[in-house]
Structure formats: C-alpha cells, structure tokens
C-alpha cells in the first residue's frame, strides 16, 4: 500500500485521477470500512469488561483459545513435514496433493463439516471402526472442534511454509551436510532459521483461521456451551439473546484479526503465488 501511494505521489498532481477509478475504488473502501465502524461504534465500551468476564463469555473464550491452539499444534506437527515433502519430494509435489491441500481453503466450511461427519461420524468411513473397536465417538465433542479447526486451518500453514521451503537455496543444506550435519540438525539449525518469518506467519494465520472457524465446527461439533461452543458460535448464539454480549465478543475477534494481519504481512500471499 505504501508503495502505491509513494509512486503515485511521485507522479505529481498534474495528472487528475479518472472518476471511473476513483469513485468505485472509494466506494469499496467505504463498503469495507462501514461494518468495522458499525461494530466499533455500537460496542458497549463501558460494559466491555463486565460482558467479557461473564461466565458464559469466559467459557467460550477459554474453549476457543484451547481448541484453536491445539488445532494449530496439530496443523504444525503434521503440516511442517507435509510442506517439506511437497517442496522437495516428487511424490508429494503433484497436482493431486496440491489440490487436496488447497481444497479446505475454497470449500464452504459447512461442507467441510459434513465431510468430517461422514468420515469420523459414528457410521463414517473411519468413525465406525473407532466406535466399534474403541468405543470412541468423535462428533459433538471438544476433540471434534479441534479436528474441524485443524481441517480448515492447516492449509494456511502448509501453503505459507511450503512456498518458503521451495524458495530457500538448498545449497545451504548441502553446505551443512559437508560440515557433518545430519538431516535433522541441518533442518533445525539451517533451514528453520531461513524460513522463520514464514513459519511465524503460517502459524499465526493458521491460528487465526482456527479461532474464527464457524461452519465446520457447527456441523461436526455442534454448539454446546462449554464443550463445543467456541467464540464465533457464542457470538452467533448470543445475537438473538444478548446483543451487547455478541458485539463485545465480536470486538475480541476483530482485535485478534487486526493483530494477525500485522504479524503475517505478505508471507501467505507469497506462498499462494508460488
């Protein structure tokens, strides 16, 4: 954004902006800004603390924090090896794996939830065995929340990190090998520092997406206070009952989004473009 303004500034005042660019462009800004303004304008600032420290709010906050962090941990633990394989191994570099990883990004989350239900539900692809053999029932549990969040959020981490791994100069890894470093040492001490900005960005984006997850969670895990009702679900549930509380919780989610936006900057976009 800054580059656009400066380059435009350099071009000088002599050239007038055409109205057919200026008008719709400005309209877009207003369109994007208004809802934020509405949210902030109508936020019950005076009662904010009371509303957020109410037991129901705290419960949703705590559940959201726990599940989103766990989902992020799962996404990193599984996604980092996957990103490495996609960047460096031909078996994982094909269009199929890539499409599969990108799918949750474009899939309507509700459909994701239905799909999870069909895979892990009591009569699902894997779920029936889990139930029959281990007596485990995943849907509508806190574990289901974590799964729904991880399913939807993992691509953000994988794509960001894979892009970074792909663009690192592998000769540094070769240099490390000639210095006696095994693969794990090389990855930990040479590769990781080189992709650190993307690792951070990917993790933050992934966490933000997990925190905001709604559709897949609702479908696969339901909305039971204290068990599966995360912040977004709590906002939705409160909207009809207690508007002020819904707005207060929304402001929390908005604040998180702004922080994430600043932290992640352009890393994810760069990953997508690769």
């Amino acid at each position, binding site marked *: 954004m800054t580059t656009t303004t400066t380059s435009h500034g350099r071009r000088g005042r002599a050239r007038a902006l055409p109205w057919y660019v200026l008008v719709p462009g400005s309209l877009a800004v207003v369109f994007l800004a208004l809802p934020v303004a509405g949210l902030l304008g109508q936020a019950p600032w005076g009662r904010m603390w009371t509303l957020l420290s109410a037991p129901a709010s705290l419960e949703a906050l705590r559940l959201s924090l726990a599940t989103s962090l766990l989902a992020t941990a799962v996404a990193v633990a599984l996604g980092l090896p996957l990103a490495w394989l996609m960047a460096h191994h031909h078996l994982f570099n094909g269009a199929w794996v890539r499409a599969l990883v990108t799918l949750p990004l474009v899939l309507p989350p509700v459909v994701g939830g239905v799909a999870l239900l069909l895979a892990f539900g009591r009569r699902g692809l894997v779920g029936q065995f889990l139930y029959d053999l281990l007596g485990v029932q995943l849907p509508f549990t806190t574990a289901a929340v974590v799964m729904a969040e991880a399913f939807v959020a993992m691509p953000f981490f994988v794509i960001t990190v894979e892009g970074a791994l792909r663009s690192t100069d592998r000769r540094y890894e070769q240099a490390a090998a*000639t210095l006696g470093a095994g693969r794990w040492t090389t990855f930990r001490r040479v590769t990781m520092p080189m992709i650190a900005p993307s690792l951070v960005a990917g993790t933050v984006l992934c966490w933000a997406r997990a925190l905001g997850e709604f559709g897949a969670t609702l479908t696969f895990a339901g909305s039971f206070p204290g068990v599966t009702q995360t912040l977004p679900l709590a906002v939705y549930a409160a909207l009809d009952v207690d508007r002020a509380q819904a707005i207060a919780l929304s402001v929390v989610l908005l604040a998180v989004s702004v922080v994430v936006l600043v932290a992640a900057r352009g890393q994810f976009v760069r990953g997508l473009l690769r």
Partner: protein
Amino acid sequence: MTATARARMGIDASITTRIGDFVLDLDIVAAPGRVTAVLGPNGSGKTTLLNTLAGLEPVGSGRIIVNGALVDDAAAAVFVPPERRRIGVVFQDFLLFPSMSVADNVAFGLTSRGVRATTARRSAQAWLSRLGIADLAARRPAELSGGQAQRVAMARALALEPDALLLDEPLAALDVGTRIEVRRELREYLADFTGATLLVTHDPLDALVLADEVVILEEGRVTQQGSAAGVAARPATDYVAALMGANLLRGTASEGLVTTDDGACVHVVDRTLLGPVVVVMRPEAISLHVDRPEGSPRNVWPVRVVDLESRIDRMMVRVEGPPDLSVAITLAAAADLHVAPGSALWASTKALDIDAYSRPLMGG
C-alpha cells in the same frame, strides 16, 4: 576396501556420471599435502566433479576413495553421505549461514558432530585467529566483505580438520583487488594443510599460483594433466593454449618440417619428430614485417591482419595465414608497421622459438 585402496592416501577417484547429454568421465588422484587444480571452461563438469567427491551427488559408475576409505562405489552399492565423508568444501559463494554469527558458522561443523558448544566455540575462535579474522567473530555474514567471507568459509571448512579440502572457484566471487591478496593468503593456508586439496577454477592464474598439479577438464574429460609449469609450457588443446596465451598448431612432422592442418609449413629444430605433432608458438616470439624479411628466420608466412587489441605495454595482433596466429608486438612497432585490420604483412619466427612435440594421446 582393497589393500591398494588402503595404501593410497588423498583422493583417488574414478567417476563416470551422466547428466542428460553431458557425461563426466575421469580418473583423478589428488595427493595429500598437495594442491591439485582442476582447470576447465564453464560447463566442463567441474562442479559436478566437486559435488560427486563431496557426496552431494552419487557417482553414476566408478568409485571414490578418500584417505584409503571407500566412500562411493556404484558397483558395491557403497555410498557414504556427505556428513560422514570428512571432506571440507569451500563453496564459490561461500554459503555462510546467514542467521548465524561468524563464530557460530565456524563452530557449526563441530557442534553438529556432537562437540560441546563451549569447546566448539573455543576451537572456532582459534581458527578465526589463525586466519587473522578473530575480530569478526560476532559479525553476521551479511556484514562481511568478500575477502572476509572467503576467510570465514575457509575457517569453517578447516575447523573440522577434514581429510581433504575441495575449493570451488574460491576467488571468483571476489573483486580483482581483493583477489590478488586472498590468493596469496590462500597459498599460505593450503601449504599448512596436510590433506589433499582439490581446487576447481576457470582462472589459470589460480592454478599456476596455488596448485602443484594441474588437471585440465574439458567437456567432462581430462585432456591434460601434469605440473602447472609443464601444462603451461606444453598446452595440449586449444583451450589450454588460449588460456596460456600461446598459439597452438596441429600438424604432421617429417624431418624437421611440420605441415600444419591448415596448410602452413613450419620449420622446427627437432628433426626426429615424425607423425602427428603439436606446435606451440608464444605470441612474443613472432615478429611482423611490411616486406618479406631476409635473414636467419626460416619460418616466414604471408598473413593478413584480422583484429587488433591493445594491452598496457603491447599490441595483440590476430592474423590469418595460414597459419592463423596471435602476435604480440610493441606499441612502437605497431605504429611503424601501420597495422590495421586488412593489412597484408609477413610473420616470421625462428625455429628455435618454436616448441613442437608429439601429439599427446589424451584429448586432441
């Protein structure tokens, strides 16, 4: 491991590797305590050779023995990965780890091999002192000049006390001023190194200054090898000749007369030469004349000037004959002769100034 393999220290490799249309096919021996330069044009397979020796690429077929240990053998399915080869590599662009300080870069190899951090750090510091860059220990690679980075890369490779050292164009990334200084330093460090050093370069000066032994690599094959002075004096291929600045003519000898492949007659001193020969003439040994010269030189050819190039103290004149030659004359002589592209002149040289020898079996 065979008995002969165990007896042989240094690097002893026999490599055939195919990459697409390119084939690297060579035998190379690098003796411990000596510097062997692999000199070749771009695309001759120098980097592939280096990567193969370091273990970054496996041999297609053949085997590599380092200090008596078999590290790669396609037939015996032996492949020792680079991290267990004990071969130090200094890469062309140094590849210092950007996130680590200079000291951590140098200590990296030791800590990777399980040496305790404090011990590794002390050792790294000692190496930095030895290379005269102890004051750079806390710097990041991005804050180093080319010459400094080169020294850090050397320290990093030497800190592991490797069995052999591979240098990939160690001076190519440096500017001309630094290069002369670093080359001189490099010569000192390499003299202290007890293992075999293999230096890959396209700069004949690196080879002449730094190496005891020179191997010429062209299109994946060794076309000449020997002492640096020997290769310079008797270039076997056009590439080496051009590199050394000499004229190289191929022909057939009989009773002191060589008929070159392009049809010129060249008198040589050695009357015993017979059959295919190579004739080498230094550009300084040839003179140019406006009129056909009378006198002792027996080699006189009518030539036409193709091209001129002035150097600091001389004019390099390309003439076409036969034979086609590069001639070095003084700037004063160039002015007297009014040489210009297209001028018709006479070129002459004494038989004594011509080196002729039987065409080597290799290459050519």
